[in-house]
């Protein structure tokens, strides 16, 4: 079975830098990691491969430095990786990104299952999985917490809902997005790391992907980011001085204030 895992490079900390002109995140390779949700996607793909045999391919769209996280994915067990990289892809919103990723999947050919993390921790949209499925015109299930059964032709999943869960069966090829409790990702091994250094790594540009120029990058993006900012943190910690009775009174006052007047600043 051929499984593609979509991975995204995200900042490794909350202290992200924003491009003042485009209001998009400046991505620095040495301060980037695999989107945490995508690690669960990788692990789920590896588990399927352990049982059914086949190939797991890590796929990403990004700057050339995204190679670092793709090699990381290979150190964890992915067999090879494909990077869609071209200046023409820059500034893409989720729709243009999903279209671009779909081109990569078409190039890889004969893919049975595409697994994405539930969402990326930088954009928090959770749109790529469903948009990718729609672009490829295949079914999808989001928020999968368990793959109950999988064969060459169909998959049965447990999907988390607001009020519980649903068990859904669909035919393959298909897309699933996974939540973080689905598994416990394995750590890389020494042979895994050594293999990843020289593993096959393919870069596809817009031309080779036969991309429709009107559907990629900022041109293909109906979403316009007008402003992006880091929310100002207003809450501060305060130290309560005095003996235990004074401290209790002080905390009591805070609780009363919240009960009667709602949230307070400190």
């Amino acid at each position, binding site marked *: 079975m051929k499984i593609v895992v979509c991975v995204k490079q995200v900042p*490794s900390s909350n202290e992200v830098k924003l491009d003042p002109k485009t209001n998009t995140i400046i991505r620095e390779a040495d301060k980037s*990691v695999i989107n945490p949700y995508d690690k669960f996607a990788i692990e789920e793909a590896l588990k399927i491969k352990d049982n059914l045999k086949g190939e797991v391919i890590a796929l990403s769209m990004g700057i050339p430095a995204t190679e670092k996280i793709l090699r990381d994915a290979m*150190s964890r067990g992915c067999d090879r990786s494909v990077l869609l990289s071209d200046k023409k892809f820059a500034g893409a919103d989720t729709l243009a990104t999903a279209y671009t990723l779909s081109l990569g999947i078409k190039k890889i050919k004969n893919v049975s299952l595409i697994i994405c993390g539930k969402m990326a921790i930088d954009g928090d949209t959770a749109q790529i999985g469903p948009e990718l499925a729609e672009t490829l015109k295949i079914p999808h299930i989001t928020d999968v917490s368990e793959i109950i059964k999988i064969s060459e032709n169909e998959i049965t999943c447990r999907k988390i809902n607001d009020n519980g869960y649903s068990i859904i069966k669909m035919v393959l090829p298909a897309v699933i997005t996974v939540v973080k409790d689905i598994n416990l990702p394995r*750590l*890389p*091994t*020494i*042979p895994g790391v050594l293999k990843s250094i020289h593993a096959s790594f393919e870069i596809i540009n817009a031309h080779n992907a036969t991309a429709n120029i009107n559907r990629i990058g900022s041109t293909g993006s109906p979403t316009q980011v007008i402003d992006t900012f880091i929310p100002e943190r207003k809450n501060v910690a305060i130290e309560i001085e005095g003996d235990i009775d004074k401290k209790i009174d002080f905390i009591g006052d805070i609780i009363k204030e919240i009960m009667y007047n709602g949230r307070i600043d400190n």
Partner: protein
Amino acid sequence: MQNRLINKMNENFAEYLRDESRVCGNADSISFPKDEESIINIVKDAYNKNILLTIQGARTGLAAGAVPNGGHIINLSKMDKIISMKNVDEEYYLTVQPGLILSNLIEEVENKKICIENFSKESKKAYVKFLADKNKYFFAPDPTEKTATLGGMVACNASGAKSYLYGSTRNHVTGLKIVFIDGDKLSIQRGVYKARGRRLSFFTSENKKIELKLPKYEMPTTKNASGYFIEDNMDLIDLFIGSDGTLGIITEIEIKLKKRPNIIWGVNCFFEKEDIVIEFVQEVKKQMNCIAAIEFFDKNALEILRKQRENSSGFSKLPSVRKEMEASIYLEIHADDEEKAIEALKNIGEIMKELGNSDENTWVGRTDEDKNKLLLFRHAVPESVNMLIDSRRKDNSKITKLGTDMAVKSKDFRYIFNLYKKDLMKYNLEYAIWGHIGDNHLHVNILPRDINDFEIGKILYKNWADKVSEIGGAVSAEHGIGKIKTEFLKIMYGEEHINEMVKLKKYFDSKELLSIGNMFKIEKGSKY
């Protein structure tokens, strides 16, 4: 005495009567001074009234060094600032107060976000240079308990996993400020006061000349935190480092920062046969020079972890270890660049394979998230054991964990390891062994099921102290002697040398009031 600083002991201060050793002491009063002047006022008053004093930091010690023996407790946790920085010959030094928490120091130094509010102009200048410096820096000593204070670390000469490469706290302390029990002070910089043979003299701040006749014993050549640091031509500063709070009160510590290697990776290697582990470690030590830590976990430690993982949500994120694994070695690679780190990984894999073990049985931590998982694994072992013992203590409060802290020479390691195992099996005791195998320093933890196990465990512990002393090892390699290992120190050095240590203490504390019961037993003093 500034009475406003002195609090009479009551239930609000109950926690200050104990530390992580779980020994509980008693005291009449406690203070939380914020500056040196307050300390001087307190000690002068105590000195005049013959009041016993116990010095405390964060009470994370495992040898009861901070547990009071009556009298007054000086808790230094409010003296927790970084107060200055200097840059000499391209090296950075920080002066910190003794109550500074290690994790705060690590965070401020590694993120280059030091609070410079009280810095002098000179210090600010050094800090500007520090910020502009492309290199990253760190403070190398890394005891497992990151909530320890710097003062506590100096008092017991703490070390940790990375001490294999970087040495203990001693190696990173370049200056100390000390207040003596009579209120006199001493400021020491490393290299200024050196002994001539075993004679050492120096002047205090009040220009009082102190001439010391140092004890005659020879320290073990192993990792060591047992008794006073004594050697020919030694530096005065080394006498105070590891002195368990018995000679004076440390009010300032100058530490030297180290350049942080560009690459730090962790590798957990798992072995199906425990007996090849010693050989593996020997080969790693022989072949590799970029390893900062070599840590061991035995089969029982892995089993405790497995059970804890199933039963406790806190540990459920730990990766699972396959049942057939009998031991694990954690190695930490410190390298200048990725190429060298990859070479090191290859080397580790090759050694494993040469010994008939698959290099697939490894976990490599390169990203922060993966490294944190490896860290959680290492910390979860002692945590799990403590939880297990705490639950057993509910049925029998008399039993505690019996954890050794002994180190031996490399040539004796296999002998002592086999002795531990033979004795533990002979008496059918429950146990787990882990620790700093790179330094030939393991923590054998006996987990008594009942009082009978506990009593047998205590006898074994004493027998091992005998054997370790006999072959020139140290009865405490990193936790210090404190109050719970004084008998072992006697075994290690003998009565005569203990008396020399008591005499040495009296040079500084003639009334025998300071940290009484640490290192050796003295029953003196009166109540506050």
